[in-house]
């Protein structure tokens, strides 16, 4: 109850309390105000209040009263923009970002506050953590971040080096259970020969609190020792203190073999290139020579070792050398193709003209890898040129080939998937060397057949039909050897009879091309496999399938971020609650990598366990918060939880700092469930409350993580508007398709920047038109019951005056139950059920308490009963050992009492 008027207003007590609370928490806190320019744009912001932690975390002294730009003149514009969105746009945001000007990283929770233009921040300095993460990344670059993402076994140790957590996968793999492995017991599973070394490595790293990685043989359940790589990252407290490690162990025996074979295949490629009549060379990103083929060595009369590191410059003609080297280094710097002619001294001492073609090489993520190129002795051509000014057919071919080989390798490297690279290859070959090209590839996962100019993937049978009409000398089959990763064939064919059939020279060239393409296809396959392992780990922490319900269609999707191997901390779940309602949840643990994934797994299990013991989503979130603030909890997490009563289409929900759920009715009406909001988990002790809503039968409830709507350099409201429009358009699809289309249509062109979870629940269109509402027997819950009942009556088209009578009768019955049913201190639930029968509604109010009529309020209770009798056609109240049931028969229109 609040008071306002001429007797004077007092500030909202709860907001003052919240601010007081925020001033004392361990996180940094401040109250700020946006500074606007003449046009009303945010140009700066002023700190109004800060807590003591603020100074420690930002290094800004006496900030209160000063503006951000006064304190930090070089402060990045994005801070002002984002707080402008919060303070002026009313958005509540949670993000991690760094400031170069401050040299720090922060986890920030920002929310608007009254009056407009003000905002509150709660944040943590995560610089130390960020640095540890970066250090970890670097140490593992050798495996392209695999160790951080692909492992399956997870362990956690404390600062003193004792192991306190081993996941189930460890037990499944080693057969050693959690109890046996704790302390230093896990060393028993390590091969006796490796044990001493592993122990020493671990202890040394633990002393220095540094990330480490160690390979050893690990005993599998069946007694076989498998090679494993164990990588660990320090766990740090917010202020950077070492708390122990979180580590992952991955079985790399298969990969070790694959690497061996890949190395062998690389050697084969190099060996094959030795047979080529062209000189082939590879340079690294600094322009240093990495590899030259045998033809190159033979030509110059040197060995490979002698050539390493750039000695080739000494072999060039003194008049040409400098210009040649400068031009080459320019191309390296600018990552562009290279073409040059130069005189060099051949092994026998003769000066020869050499023409070189080079192409920059790029990896799947666009990083520059160095140049690849070919050189040919063009002295004869030069002489001919000088004499005849004519190049000749064979020579042009040689030049085209050299160019094509370099071009193909560079183009393939810039694509990321196996299928993408195969498609690029066949597209590059037509029409340059063939009228028709195809790749047939069999890996352990699948068979890919791609032909050009045929569209899409085709079957092997279709491929044979394409090849059959060709003359034998107009087609070539070149082996593609992906070592242990698979094998296949590159097919090229000439359909145009005017073209010259393939000869031995063509064959040799295409064989080399196939060998180099094999290498790139194999590495793409390795990358795809690693990514699949990372995704599988994430999936293993999510429910295998959603629990089913006859009156509720459920579907959920998890989409990994497109460009990172790291797994995220998003999760979803569904389960039946003790009272028969369905609980659905979506949450998001801030951060990436194993720690976030492991924290997500723990939160999910905890929520599942808590949810079956409570009826209020807000209570579940509060309990989860208690759990999450324990030692194994994450630093920051958000989540939303809804309990759905499918038969009456009542949704009760609460959200801890999570983006609001969305309801789309069959008519296309959109309702954002933006009540029941509270602080994210792990921020501060806080009150959380439920909200309820009645949705139209056939409506779809959507839960999602912020990755679905957030895009870089875009306002959040743009993303939510896009979600709303898309969900409305797709609302009639089955929920599984709906989820698929939502993620497909909302994904940015280059894929999602972050992991995305979406969960859809459709309440059966045939949902019985019954209202069922269950709530804890507390006075504060009565308003929610009325709100919910009002909406239900509106949906049923009940006359407003009759509706207000029905509310009154229900209110009386429930007040009685709250006051009297649980007087002995127990807080049970009250269940309200309303169903239509002919021209009336039958309402049942049940409690499970021991009804104790009391003297003090008897007069009032009598008044309540009189009201119920006056409104209803029939009123009964039955009390038994199981509790009390009140049944009211209420007319659907006035005057029919």
């Amino acid at each position, binding site marked *: *109850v*609040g*008071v*306002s*008027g*001429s*007797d004077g207003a007092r500030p*909202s007590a*709860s*907001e003052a309390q*919240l601010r007081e609370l925020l001033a004392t928490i361990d996180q940094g806190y401040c109250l700020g105000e946006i500074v606007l320019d003449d046009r009303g744009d945010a140009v700066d912001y002023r700190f109004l209040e800060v807590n003591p932690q603020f100074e420690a975390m930002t290094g800004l002294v006496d900030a209160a009263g000063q503006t951000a730009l006064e304190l930090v003149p070089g402060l990045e514009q994005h801070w002002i923009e984002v707080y402008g969105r919060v303070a002026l746009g009313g958005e509540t945001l949670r993000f991690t970002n760094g400031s170069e000007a401050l040299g720090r990283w922060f986890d920030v929770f920002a929310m608007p506050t009254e009056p407009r233009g003000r905002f509150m921040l709660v944040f943590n300095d995560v610089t130390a953590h960020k640095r540890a993460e970066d250090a970890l990344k670097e140490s593992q670059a050798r495996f392209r971040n695999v160790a951080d993402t692909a492992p399956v076994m997870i362990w956690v140790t404390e600062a003193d080096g004792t192991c306190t957590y081993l996941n189930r996968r460890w037990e499944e793999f080693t057969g050693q259970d959690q109890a046996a492995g704790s302390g230093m017991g896990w060393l028993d599973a390590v091969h006796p020969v490796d044990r001493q070394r592993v122990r020493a490595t671990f202890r040394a790293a633990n002393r220095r609190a540094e990330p480490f990685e160690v390979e050893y043989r690990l005993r599998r359940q069946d007694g076989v020792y498998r090679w494993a790589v164990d990588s660990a990252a320090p766990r740090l407290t917010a202020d950077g203190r070492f708390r122990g490690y979180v580590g992952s162990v991955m079985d790399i025996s298969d990969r070790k073999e694959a690497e061996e074979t890949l190395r062998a295949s690389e050697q084969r490629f190099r060996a094959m290139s030795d047979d080529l009549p062209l000189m082939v060379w590879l340079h690294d990103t600094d322009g240093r020579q990495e590899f030259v083929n045998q033809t190159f060595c033979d030509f110059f009369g040197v060995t490979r070792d002698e050539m390493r590191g750039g000695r080739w410059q000494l072999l060039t003609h003194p008049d040409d050398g400098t210009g040649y080297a400068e031009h080459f280094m320019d191309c390296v710097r600018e990552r562009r193709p290279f073409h040059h002619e130069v005189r060099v001294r051949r092994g026998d001492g003769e000066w020869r003209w050499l023409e070189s073609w080079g192409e920059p090489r790029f990896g799947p993520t666009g990083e520059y890898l160095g140049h690849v190129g070919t050189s040919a002795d063009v002295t004869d051509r030069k002489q001919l040129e000088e004499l005849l000014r004519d190049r000749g057919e064979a020579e042009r071919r040689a030049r085209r080939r050299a160019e094509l080989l370099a071009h193909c390798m560079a183009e393939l490297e810039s694509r990321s998937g196996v299928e993408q690279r195969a498609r690029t290859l066949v597209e590059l070959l037509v029409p340059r060397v063939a009228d028709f090209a195809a790749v047939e590839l069999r890996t352990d996962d699948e068979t890919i057949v791609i032909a050009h100019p045929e569209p899409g993937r085709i079957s092997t049978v279709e491929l044979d039909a394409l090849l059959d009409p060709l003359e034998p000398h107009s087609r070539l089959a070149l082996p593609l050897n992906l070592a242990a990763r698979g094998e296949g064939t590159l097919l090229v064919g000439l359909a145009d009879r005017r073209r010259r059939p393939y000869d031995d020279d063509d064959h040799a060239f295409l064989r080399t091309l196939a060998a180099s393409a094999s290498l790139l296809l194999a590495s793409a396959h390795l990358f795809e496999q690693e990514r699949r392992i990372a995704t599988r780990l994430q999936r293993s922490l999510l429910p295998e399938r959603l629990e089913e319900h006859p009156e509720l269609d459920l579907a959920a999707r998890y989409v990994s971020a497109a460009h990172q191997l790291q797994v995220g901390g998003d999760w979803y779940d569904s389960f039946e609650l003790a009272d028969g309602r369905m609980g659905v949840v979506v949450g998001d643990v801030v951060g990436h990598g194993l720690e976030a994934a492991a924290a997500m797994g723990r939160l999910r299990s905890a929520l599942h366990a808590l949810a079956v013991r409570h009826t209020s989503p807000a209570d579940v979130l509060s309990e989860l918060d208690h759990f999450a603030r324990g030692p194994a909890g994450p630093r920051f997490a958000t989540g939303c939880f809804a309990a759905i009563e499918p038969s009456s289409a009542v949704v009760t929900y609460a959200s801890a700092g999570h983006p609001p759920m969305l309801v789309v009715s069959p008519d296309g009406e959109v309702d954002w469930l933006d009540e029941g909001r509270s602080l994210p988990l792990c921020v501060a002790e806080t009150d959380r*409350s439920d909200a309820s809503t009645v949705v139209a039968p056939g409506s779809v409830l959507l839960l999602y993580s912020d990755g679905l709507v957030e895009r870089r350099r875009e306002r959040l409201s743009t993303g939510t508007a896009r979600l709303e429009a898309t969900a409305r358009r797709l609302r009639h699809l089955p929920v599984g398709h709906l989820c698929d289309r939502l993620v497909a249509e909302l994904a940015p062109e280059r894929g999602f920047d972050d992991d995305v979870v979406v969960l859809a629940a459709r309440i059966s269109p045939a949902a019985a038109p019954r209202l069922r509402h269950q709530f804890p027997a507390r*006075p*504060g819950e*009565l*308003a929610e019951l*009325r709100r919910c009942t009002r909406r239900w009556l509106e949906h049923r088209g009940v006359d407003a005056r009759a509706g*207000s009578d029905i*509310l*009154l009768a229900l*209110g*009386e019955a429930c*007040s009685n139950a*709250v*006051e009297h049913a649980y007087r002995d201190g127990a807080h049970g639930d009250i269940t309200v059920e309303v169903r239509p029968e002919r021209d009336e509604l039958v309402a049942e109010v049940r409690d499970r308490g021991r009804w104790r009529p009391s003297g003090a309020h008897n007069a*009032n209770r009598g*008044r*309540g009963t*009189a*009201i119920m009798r*006056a*409104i209803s056609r029939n009123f009964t109240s039955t009390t038994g050992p199981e509790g009390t049931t009140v049944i009211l028969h209420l007319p659907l229109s006035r005057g029919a009492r």
Partner: protein
Amino acid sequence: VNDPLARVEVTHPGPGQVALFVLGEVDLSNAVELGEIILAAIGDHSAAVVDLSAVQYLDSQGTRLLVDLALADHGAELIVVAPGDSVAGELLAISELHRLLDVRATSPW
């Protein structure tokens, strides 16, 4: 922070007069506190009008509040405003509180 369920606007139309305009919903969760607020506002004024015409929900908890007000020792002349077709008016009619309270359809001030 949720909006409070009900609030009271207080005005002073003339000397010794206090008008209390109640908005929102009154139930078990706030009736006692609301009663205390109203009683405090009446204080030692000689005439008070409690206007319930805009109340959206009122049940027997609310009638208890009104009965307590009528019986309280404040010395003010108390008038309750509740038109017959309002939520409060209908409830007062059902519970026959007209006998105890001076209920009117419009405010005298």
